[in-house]
């Protein structure tokens, strides 16, 4: 299932209760506390269910999940071709 930016923002809006649309796509989320650990775990589960790929320790990295742009890029790379 292809992850759209709107679906991601809607999901984060429900779990983080912060309107991330007001932030830029490159704004840091986890390293600045906008997303906490609990919400990050929920996000990872959400991405797993969307991409069908099981995440490993090598995936769970700020480079992949610290901004909307990085999350979208990671999801696109893991989606089945």
């Amino acid at each position, binding site marked *: 299932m292809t992850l759209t930016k709107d679906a991601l923002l809607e999901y984060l809006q429900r779990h983080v*209760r912060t309107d991330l649309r007001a932030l830029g796509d490159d704004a840091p989320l986890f390293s600045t506390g906008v997303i906490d650990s609990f919400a*990050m775990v929920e996000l*990872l*589960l959400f991405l797993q269910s969307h991409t069908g790929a099981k995440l490993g320790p090598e995936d769970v*990295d700020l480079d992949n999940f610290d901004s909307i742009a990085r999350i979208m890029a990671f999801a696109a790379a893991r989606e089945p071709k």
Partner: protein
Amino acid sequence: MTRGIVILGPPRSGTTLLRRILGAHPDIAAPPETYLLSGAARFLHEDRFSPGLPIGAVAGLGFAGFDEAEVLSRLRAFVFGFADDFARRHDKRRWALKTAFDAFHVPAIRRLCAGHVQFVCLQRQGLDVIASLEELVHKTGGYVDELHAYVRRHPDPLEAFAQAWIDAAGAVAELAADEPGAIALRYEDLVREPAAVIADLLARLGARADEGVLARALAELGEVGFGDWKTYGRATIDDSSVDRWRRLPAAARARLAELCNPTLVRLGYGAVPIDTATDDAQRRYELGLMVQRMRRPTS
């Protein structure tokens, strides 16, 4: 029209906000939480054992020649007397009482007050109440007696809060349905459309319309006394606390939904979906550890 108004709702359901608004009306005095009604409820407490008489003050005084109506009348005069004096001091004709944990004493409060006050019954989505109770307990550092009774029975605090909410919300709903003149409100409606909800409430209370009541309530600084500490930090009413349950971990949401959904549906809130697909505790734990490692600064 009664001079007394009693606000009842499970704790963390917006009762302090409502008290604050009603207290800004020129005819209604609303003291900080007095614990008068729950205190009176404890006075009326009776132990009942299958073979015998109820054991308590009413039965005991009955044997001394004071019938129940007289005992209730004297107790009512004692309780209402404080509220009447408070209203007089503020040059107002009516009063509104609320204390956070009164909802756990509804039968006794009803026994004391029915026919002598107008009840305002407030409800809020149960999982939001539970999330807010968790925050309250964290701030206070312990459990008041009414909550402790549930924590003793349920080792998981969230489950204890859920059972507490189910009981309190059920008792308040029953009163709202059965008591003539009782007014039922929802927290969600109050924070989304405060002007309309309060205008309608004042009309149903027989109080004069007052378009400035919200502005005056919000302009007031917090007063010394028991009550919700958060409402006084707000200069506006908004719905930012609605649906806060969505931030609970999915496993907790699923467990609470199982417990609360029958009551949520009965109260007109939708059932909370139980997302069994993500309810994988071990996988959640593994991901949690990975996220914690992600926090560590690289050397």
